[in-house]
């Protein structure tokens, strides 16, 4: 029987093949996990993501009404309070997640890139929060800008990253950095789902 004609080469088909091979849907959204995933430590990652969702949601509202709104509107101040406390909780949960992952040595079995992306998420989050503090247009943002400039200037980066320039800091805070944080968190999640959750440390193994 003659062989069916081979379909023409397709980048789309190749990409679909890679995705299906590397991250099939039942890996991306499994309905089963190893029994040890029931540990309380695994909660910190998902609550950090939950806090990030509320940071972004409240941030979108603040950005929609403009940087002056929350200073003059009680509703705006309440939304700012949601943003403020979401950020605080985000960092608390993220740090607990980091310590949990460290003491579980969860970079084992080929998961070093997952750890590294997580560290970068942490760093970018700090920078994002920093630009947020600079965007407040109040006494705190004035003081932070005046003092932070010296550390940044000492590295030479101050010539290009001007903490005294509200427009630059605000643009970074409401658009560029949130896109970066969200993208990195998505990559981090895909990495976790690809490899699955690392097995517990075997005390008998070196």
């Amino acid at each position, binding site marked *: 029987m003659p062989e069916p004609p081979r379909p023409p080469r397709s980048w789309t088909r190749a990409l679909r093949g890679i995705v299906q091979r590397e991250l099939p849907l039942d890996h991306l959204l499994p309905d089963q996990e*190893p029994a040890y995933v029931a540990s309380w430590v695994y909660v910190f990652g998902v609550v950090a993501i939950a806090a990030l969702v509320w940071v972004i949601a409240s941030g979108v509202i603040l950005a929609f009404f403009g940087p002056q709104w929350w200073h003059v509107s009680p509703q705006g101040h309440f939304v700012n309070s949601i943003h403020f406390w979401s950020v605080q909780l985000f960092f608390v949960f993220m740090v607990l997640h980091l310590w949990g992952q460290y003491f579980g040595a969860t970079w084992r079995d080929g998961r070093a890139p997952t750890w590294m992306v997580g560290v970068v998420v942490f760093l970018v989050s700090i920078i994002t929060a920093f630009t947020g503090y600079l965007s407040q247009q109040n006494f*705190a943002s004035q003081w932070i800008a005046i003092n932070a400039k010296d550390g940044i200037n000492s590295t030479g980066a101050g010539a290009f990253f001007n903490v005294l320039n509200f427009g630059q800091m605000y643009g970074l805070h409401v658009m560029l950095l949130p896109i970066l944080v969200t993208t990195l968190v998505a990559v981090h999640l895909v990495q976790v789902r690809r490899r699955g959750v690392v097995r517990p440390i075997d005390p008998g193994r070196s």
Partner: protein
Amino acid sequence: MAPYDLVRELALALAAVLVLVLVLAAALSSPDVPAVTVQSWAQHAPVDLVSTATSELQGTTLSSAYGPPYTAPGEEAADAVGITPEEVPDSVQTLGPLAPQLWAGIHLPIHPAWSDVLHPLVLASVGNPALRQAVVAYRRAPAATRRRWLVAFQAQLGSARMVRGQLVVRPAQDGPLPLMMETLLTVARSGGLDALLTQSGHFYQTDYTGPLLFLGDGGYLPALAQSQHLLGDQWGMMNETGRYPGQAWLWLYTMWYQIPPYSTAGNADLLVVLTMGLLTTLLLLVPFLPGLRDIPRWVPIYRLIWREHYRDEAARRRPRPGPG
């Protein structure tokens, strides 16, 4: 393997965190201490503002003498009053041959004497011939003469007082400075200097480099910061105005500033940045670093993390009693 509902977990997490956030927001609100204006500075610390403006004319304030990215070290003082750059301490930080602040160069040029003092006075002199003459006389005077006037005026500010809204300074050989500074203070107290400092020649502007550097050159803003525990030696980087939590995640960054040699080093900022850069690199490379990657095995917190797993494993390995 056991059933696990990731989506429900996320939904529960979203709900729980939202409730927590709403409770915190409703109960505790969030900090918002209003921004300091040059007007409030002029009203609450007028002598400090005038002293700062005088130092701007001398080119000896922090921002005037800063160095890159704002100025060439000492150039403002040399232009203003003929002081050599070596006489004016700058804010350039280096570590041996490492001088990234210098390498980056001047990309945000400022001229505080002009932008903070002389230009506002030129604008204010419209319709004020006496002031116009004073400013012209100042700008035309030789550098040495300006230096003499400024030193004499600055020396009298220690005993200056406000009398019925007017700055009163003892007479001295200070040329046109008393009229210039009295006018500058009047403009500042009216709120006009805030507007003039943000003037950039463009209708829209969002860059507050000039006015923020001017505020930072004075003593008023740091005094307010001290009252809010925001100074460096108060662990201020971690703190927030009022009794709110600040950026607690900066605890390690600010800790270095409290201990020698960082606490007394002129290049402390560069030292701290390099130290934190090294530690951050180590954190990033933990999976590859012997010792650091082994600590979790040595410190058995993992037994707490997977407590139930180890208990089940131990139960599985226990020999079962035989029949009979």
